[in-house]
């Protein structure tokens, strides 16, 4: 017997949940839309300030640990032969990965004119900027003698010191700087009209801040046209930058002769992993900001659903690329590679490896279900799992693989110290801290883009159901 539920004429026209939500958006005035964004920015309770205080404390503790490391030398970080790249470089790769999905998702969705992107793009771009700032600290932390960082800059000097442009570390610094500059400028350009809106609706220190940042924006017809053109060009340019940054980070590893690093698949593996972890971090942040600022009106379940779908696709791709790398390594049967694989599957690293696989694969399975993707709580839990899993993955790639090499007398282990853990915690606290402050100072949702989206939005009845039709206006 058929279980299909029939929709009869007496049921009237069905308006799906997402369409209802979008229709709601068209019923509010521009003033209300402005207020719906600006008011939550001023609401801060004990939980907000308490969290801020804890994060600030962790951040300063990390700074103290960094100072301690500078004072007593790199040995206090637990770095020793043969694992010269430990948690610092693992965390560096992790942050670069997190940074990836932000601007990428915003740019790709802008190019393809995906309408659902509008409320989430700024949050994604800010995630990129702050994650890159945290990543950018690691070369300085890892270099040990911080004051010699200037040697990486090309300037004529009487000692004839010159940066080695053939060094992957040099490529790294330049690529990350480029992505940070590009992402920050892209974020700021799209922000200018909303800063103008915030300026017109603020008083006191906020007015002064927004006035300075809005640069005298009025919203003239020519101004809008040029801004949109610039954002369109930016979106196209930023995508190859995004692809190159994580490729270059992966070449730090791939151009060495270290077993399991010296592989042509590593750039693709890094990029896919970055998209997987970055999208997961974006979903985590969207759920938390939506809950913390009560932005349900802007950040709807439709957005969580769509980001969830993207994570699902990225997750499946990550499994594929991981397997593609593994099958070649396993089949080659190179002694050191086999040793490393055994260590990972059955040896000391097995608990980490199994945890990583469980945390990365289980969420992918659940994200196949619409109800899970639309549940903020489930999405939060699953995406946090992915990010813990991806952090472990970075650690296994960097520190795990360095424990074994072509010279067995040179094998060893690695254990991070309190200094390492404190410094790593500093960047996690710093990221959350800066992001939280950002949400209360800068309009989190691109209000002008949401307003523009209303111009595109219309519905029509198809049979018994109301469907969305899109008008091409940008």
């Amino acid at each position: 017997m058929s279980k299909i539920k029939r929709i009869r004429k007496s049921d009237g026209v069905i308006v799906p949940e997402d369409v209802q939500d979008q229709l709601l958006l068209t019923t509010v005035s521009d003033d209300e839309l402005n207020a719906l964004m600006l008011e939550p920015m001023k609401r801060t309770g004990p939980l907000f300030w308490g969290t801020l205080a804890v994060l600030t404390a962790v951040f300063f503790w990390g700074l103290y640990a960094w100072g301690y490391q500078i004072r007593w030398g790199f040995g206090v970080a637990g770095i020793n032969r043969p694992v010269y790249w430990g948690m610092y470089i693992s965390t560096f790769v992790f942050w670069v990965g997190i940074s990836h999905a932000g601007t990428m998702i915003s740019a790709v969705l802008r190019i393809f004119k995906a309408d659902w992107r509008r409320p989430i793009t700024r949050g994604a771009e800010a995630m990129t900027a702050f994650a890159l700032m945290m990543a950018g600290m690691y070369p300085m932390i890892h270099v040990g003698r911080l004051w010699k960082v200037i040697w990486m800059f090309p300037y004529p000097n009487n000692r004839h010191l010159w940066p080695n442009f053939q060094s992957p570390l040099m490529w790294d610094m330049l690529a990350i700087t480029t992505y940070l500059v590009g992402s920050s400028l892209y974020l700021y350009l799209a922000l200018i009209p909303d800063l103008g809106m915030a300026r017109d609706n603020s008083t006191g220190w906020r007015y002064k801040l927004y006035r300075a940042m809005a640069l005298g924006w009025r919203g003239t017809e020519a101004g809008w046209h040029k801004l949109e053109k610039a954002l369109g060009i930016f979106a196209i340019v930023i995508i190859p930058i995004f692809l190159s940054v994580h490729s270059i980070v992966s070449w730090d590893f791939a151009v060495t002769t270290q077993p399991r690093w010296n592989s042509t698949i590593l750039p693709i593996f890094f990029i896919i992993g970055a998209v997987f972890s970055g999208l997961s971090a974006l979903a985590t942040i969207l759920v938390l900001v939506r809950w913390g600022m009560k932005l349900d009106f802007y950040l709807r379940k439709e957005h969580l659903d769509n980001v969830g779908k993207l994570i699902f696709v990225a997750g499946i791709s990550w499994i594929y690329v991981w397997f593609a790398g593994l099958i070649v390594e396993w089949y080659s049967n190179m002694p050191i590679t086999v040793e490393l694989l055994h260590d990972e599957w059955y040896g000391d690293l097995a608990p980490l490896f199994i945890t990583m696989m469980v945390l990365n694969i289980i969420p992918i399975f659940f994200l196949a279900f619409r109800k899970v993707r639309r549940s903020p709580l489930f999405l939060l839990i699953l995406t946090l799992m992915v990010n813990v899993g991806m952090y472990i993955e970075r650690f296994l790639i960097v520190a795990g693989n360095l424990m074994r090499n072509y010279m067995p007398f040179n094998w060893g282990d690695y254990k991070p110290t309190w200094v390492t853990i404190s410094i790593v915690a500093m960047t996690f606290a710093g990221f959350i801290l800066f992001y939280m402050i950002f949400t209360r100072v800068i309009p989190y949702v691109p209000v002008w883009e949401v307003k523009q989206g209303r111009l595109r939005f219309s519905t029509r009845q198809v049979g018994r159901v109301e469907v969305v039709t899109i008008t091409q206006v940008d």
Partner: protein
Amino acid sequence: MNKTINLMGLFEDDTATAAALDDIYDLGVQDDQITVISPIPYPEQSLGREHIWIRLPLIVLAGSALGFATGFFLSSVTPRLYPINVSGHPLTGGPPAAIITYIFTMLFTVIAIFIGVLWEIDVPGFEKKFYTKRVTSGMLSVLLENIPLNQEKAAVSAMESNGGQDIHRPEKMTL
């Protein structure tokens, strides 16, 4: 010399604005005397105005070329001025030079987009300008600058007849 005035009117929607602009053009007001300020971008020509010429792509191309030249110079020329002999490596390696050149090209490109668009939009500009905060409430503002005094009545009428509100001689305000 004829005395000139400035005039501003507000409109609730784009169609009314376009109709008012039509009537204003018919009065002989020139394109550079008219500014439309809106809360969101409208499709080009939707308000009945000409295509807006923009030099941004040329600025971006110039930025990219400069970035390419800088990257090439740093990666391929300077290593010969400051030679670093690393065993077996050429002073200038092709693939690493390609990476550095690529990165500098992209870096200068994004900076050129940013500086180019700010220059095109003519910001930062903190001097007093004609503006109304009602734009952020969703109104479209039509600003006529330096129109002859004897055209004022006709311009007001053109705006009013198309649903224009709060038509007034604006004061410049701090932005």
